[in-house]
């Protein structure tokens, strides 16, 4: 089966290309375009799943052959790919999520019939999938940068796909500008590596850091951190993320949040573990800190949102933070010479990567269905959807439980691994740095709890209670294809949650490649039923076992019911309304109200601003109508980016005065230059 994965992967790539072309060919026939483009994408993604799984099972067998997929035409640009475990693992992510989203899109794109050009959507969708897959497989810095930019380009078009909206246009620009700045950093970083390596092939970059001088090495690391950090959306480079994700069509948001930002994680992992050689301690510390900060701030800002998709976008920042915690810890362990723990932490990070990809995509798909049904992204106008779109609600609930890191779903497992690695990290060093681990753990706990709060809000306000608007009241269940897409991811969530030990086997080659340790055997006890921390004494957990026991315990309440209260009856009645004439939706608890305690507690961060205008006849306590507006401040936006932007504009306008339109002035420029040069030449 040596060549099987390769052949399948090439098939996948061809499939995406075909999908893109098909989409463009059927520009006029939107139905055909929809089916061809997304159908092909789904098939290709499926092939990709198979390919990457087989490849990972085959392990590092053919990790080191790099294959030219196109002949090299421009000097020293080689279009070569390599099937190494890390790349394959991320390919698995993109293919899995891509599969679900493609199926979903088959239904979602129908919403655009007659309004927008579905063919274009499908084409760019396939282009993104293709580019992302190639990013994960590229084996040459030039090639990597090319596909990286193509990915950014295609995504830009997808973000501003509904370009009639000002919002989407600006979001696209912001996204592309940030991404381009990131790319600039990557270019410099790669060139710094190239200076030492003398080649652009990734194999020549392997462990190049060891040969580099400290200065360029650290510079390269920081450049890569910024470059990939922008894409991953780490604080404070995240500002594009909550703008771009909501503006895009929902299937695209799912793609971006699930897959696209993972390219940043991939890049960091690739660079930090594969290229840079043994890391100095401060790298790990930096990444761990950034991760922690991103996690906490991300979830805090998410809590303040009542735009469903923006909320999810901020959660992406949070989860990227959690992933980075794992990676940072792994780097620190590598530094202090604990390959075992390094593998554990790396494993935790990567596992959370795929988990986040799965449940975040699931949540975005659900949000997409909701927005599709209610024509709004504002949670304050939703509610009561659990009755109107029960299946979507259920899938969303699963996603919410998973992302809140609650057992027995996958989010819990990966965070449990993260906890384990942080916990055992305490013993690895005796310097004060060790305190970072438990503190990071505590922050992780805070993040988890806040995330739970946030998703109680998200699910409760969106799906429960009474509908808050007519749209919500007339909402309808999403079509079958859209549900099918969510089913795939729901199943993935459950499986990844219940059978971690089986899945971790796939990750063995990755950890072997990057940290030199295969862990799955140590991690699984009781023939795979139980997941244990790297050291057997560390602690164990078994989501599967817990679920089984829970099932066994279920008879207890049922028995109680059976014994005591067979005779009782169940009556539906109105909710207690304190004796008013029934509850109206306007009396429900709003999303803003729900998050108010948090807003008050973290005043210092949010600087909340509230405006209350009430009109009343005789007493302010009997207001005729009342307008309440509460806003929080996005610190990075207002303190860093806006001033910077303003400065640039100011300077540019000033410089514009040079071109004042007077010929004399222009002559003087030349004259002065000439005289200076003459003096200089003397």
């Amino acid at each position, binding site marked *: 089966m040596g060549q099987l994965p390769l052949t399948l992967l090439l098939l996948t790539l061809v499939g995406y290309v075909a999908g893109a072309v098909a989409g463009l060919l059927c520009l006029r026939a939107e139905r055909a375009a929809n089916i061809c483009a997304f159908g092909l994408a789904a098939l290709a993604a499926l092939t990709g799943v198979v390919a990457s799984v087989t490849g990972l099972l085959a392990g590092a067998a053919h990790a080191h052959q790099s294959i030219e997929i196109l002949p090299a035409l421009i000097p020293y640009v080689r279009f070569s790919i390599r099937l190494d475990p890390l790349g394959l693992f991320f390919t698995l992510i993109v293919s899995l999520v891509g599969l679900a989203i493609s199926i979903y899109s088959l239904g979602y794109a129908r919403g655009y019939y007659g309004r927008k050009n579905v063919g274009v959507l499908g084409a760019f969708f396939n282009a993104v999938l293709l580019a992302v897959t190639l990013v994960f497989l590229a084996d040459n810095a030039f090639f990597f940068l*090319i596909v990286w930019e*193509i990915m950014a380009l295609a995504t830009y078009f997808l973000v501003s796909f509904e370009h009639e909206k000002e919002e989407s246009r600006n979001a696209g620009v912001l996204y592309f500008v940030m991404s381009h700045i990131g790319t600039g950093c990557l270019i410099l970083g790669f060139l710094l590596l190239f200076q030492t390596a003398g080649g652009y092939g990734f194999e020549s970059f392997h462990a190049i850091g060891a040969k580099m001088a400290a200065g360029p090495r650290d510079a390269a690391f920081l450049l890569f951190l910024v470059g990939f950090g922008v894409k991953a959306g780490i604080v404070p480079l995240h500002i594009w993320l909550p703008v771009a994700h909501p503006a895009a069509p929902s299937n695209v948001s799912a793609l971006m949040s699930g897959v696209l930002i993972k390219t940043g994680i991939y890049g960091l992992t690739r660079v930090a573990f594969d290229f840079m050689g043994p890391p100095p301690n401060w790298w790990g510390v930096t990444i761990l800190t950034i991760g922690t900060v991103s996690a906490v701030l991300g979830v805090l800002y998410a809590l303040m949102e009542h735009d469903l998709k923006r909320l999810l976008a901020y959660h992406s920042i949070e989860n990227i933070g959690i992933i980075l915690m794992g990676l940072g810890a792994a780097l620190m362990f590598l530094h202090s010479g604990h390959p075992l723990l390094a593998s554990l932490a790396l494993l935790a990070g990567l596992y959370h990567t795929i988990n986040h990809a799965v449940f975040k995509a699931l949540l975005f798909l659900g949000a997409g269905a909701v927005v599709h049904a209610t024509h709004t992204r504002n949670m304050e106008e939703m509610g009561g959807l659990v009755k109107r779109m029960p299946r979507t609600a259920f899938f969303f609930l699963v996603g919410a439980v998973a992302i809140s890191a609650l057992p027995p779903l996958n989010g819990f497992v990966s965070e449990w691994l993260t906890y384990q690695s942080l916990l055992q990290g305490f013993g690895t060093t005796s310097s004060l740095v060790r305190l970072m681990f438990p503190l990071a753990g505590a922050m992780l706990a805070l993040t988890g709890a806040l995330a739970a709060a946030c998703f109680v809000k998200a699910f409760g306000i969106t799906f429960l209670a009474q509908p808050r608007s007519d749209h919500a009241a007339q909402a309808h269940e999403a079509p079958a294809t859209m549900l099918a897409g969510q089913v795939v991811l729901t199943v993935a969530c459950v499986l990844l949650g219940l059978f971690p030990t089986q899945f971790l086997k796939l990750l063995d080659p990755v950890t072997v490649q990057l940290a030199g340790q295969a862990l799955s055997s140590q991690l699984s006890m009781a023939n795979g039923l139980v997941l244990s921390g790297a050291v057997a004494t560390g602690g164990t957990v078994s989501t599967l076992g817990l679920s089984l026991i829970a099932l066994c315990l279920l008879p207890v309440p049922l028995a109680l019911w059976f014994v005591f209260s067979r005779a009782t009856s169940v009556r539906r009645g109105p909710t207690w309304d304190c004796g008013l004439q029934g509850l109206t939706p306007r009396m429900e608890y709003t999303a803003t109200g729900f998050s108010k305690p948090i807003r008050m507690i973290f005043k210092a961060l949010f600087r909340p601003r509230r405006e209350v205008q009430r009109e009343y006849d005789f007493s302010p306590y009997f207001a005729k109508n009342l307008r309440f507006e509460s806003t929080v401040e996005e610190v990075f936006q207002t303190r860093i980016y806006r001033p910077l932007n303003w400065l*640039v504009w100011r300077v540019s306008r000033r*410089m514009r005065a040079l071109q004042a339109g007077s010929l004399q002035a222009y002559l003087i420029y030349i004259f002065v230059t000439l005289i200076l040069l003459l003096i200089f030449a003397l």
Partner: protein
Amino acid sequence: MSLLTLLLAVPAAAGLGCLLLRARRAMAAANVLAFGFTLALGVVLLRRVAADGAVTEWAGFLRADALSAWMVLLISTVSLATSLYAGRYFQRDLAAGSVTHWRMCEFFVLTPLFGSGMFLVVLANSLGVMWAAVEATALSSVLLVALYNRRTSLEGAWKYVMLGSLGLALALLGTVFIYAAACKDSPRQLPSFNWSDLMTVAPQLDPRLVRLAFVFALIGYGTKAGLAPMHTWLPDAHSEAPSPTSAMLSGVSLKIALYALLRFHILTTACLGTAFSRHLLLGFGLLSLFLAAPFILVQENLKRMLAYSSLEHIGLICVGIGLGTPITIFGALMHMGYHALTKPVLFFAAGNIHQTCHTLEFRLIGPGLVKVLPVTVLLMGIAAVAATGLPPFGLFFSELTIISGGIAAGQVAISVFVLVALIACFCGMLRQLTRILPGEPKPGLVHDGRATDGVPAMGLLLGTLLVFSLWIPRPLLDVMHQAAGIIGGGP
């Protein structure tokens, strides 16, 4: 008749012929044919140069080495596209009554002369003749710039010609100095003014005189090439000229002046054997790069923005040459070519937009062009993607080549600077084009039926661009390497 002679004669003949035949179609056809022919000749020349070095005619009066061959190709391609585009363009202008038939004839007469002037620049061996030819191109393009005879276009033309001829006067002084330097060794008979001969005696030339000569040539030809701070005429002329002319000015004319400057640069380096001229080029290139970005960012006029982007690209080319390593020079040459293939498309598209919206102000054009001129906007978008240096188009490769060459040469600071400037320009272009291309069009504008104007021309250029971005054929590659060698002071 022989190759180089034909290259000069055919366009000139076409131009003069247009004096006789007055029909628009006929003149357009004549232009197209002429430049198509020169393109073919260019390819032949390319092959011959690639095979056996420099080609000379008229006892070395005309001489084409790799560099010239490369430029010949650029000139012919861009001119061909321009004349392809011009026909429909002026048809609509005539219909709109914005030009008289007489003015249109002016265009079709002058453009081929402009073209042959440029051919003479790159083919002339004698520096003096080269100077005269550059002046000739300037003069022939002035009236083209002033074609619309609006207040603004006259102003643009006036600035263009004043600054241009002043600069060229200085360039002439530089030329004189070089000649003088050559004279000093051979007082008896007239020394040869041929570049090739000068190269052979370069080491014996008086270094101080040559330095002085290069300074004047730099200012002079630099003005024509639009290097900051002598670039000030560039946005005016480019924005006021009819779009075909803007395309030619920006696509090749700038590079022609740069070519003339390069000849001096090579000579100077050969004589002084120092980095004197390199450093000057580098400095001016960086200045141009640095100046372009803010102007693009706050620009209010489409064609002016494009002109500033040309400034940026010229700057980048100069930086590439100024860095002076084989890689960067090669990158600079690539960049010349790719830019020549890209920028005209943008100007053509701007022309269509102008004819549809009757303005070039971003504010007045407003959003939503994609709904009005779908095809044009599509092509323009592709060209813009290419021009801002995104893959899979060549400028990405050339820019990356230059930067990586810079890093490899240890010029980290410069490379970083270049990268920053490029990113800034990208952001500017992105923002500006987003203001007009996507969105919901203003109520006044409706889908324009004649929106497919100029598609052949743009298609030709973009197709070539795409092909050559992914695949540079062997002989071309050889010639480019030879040219890079020549600039780099090699054989």
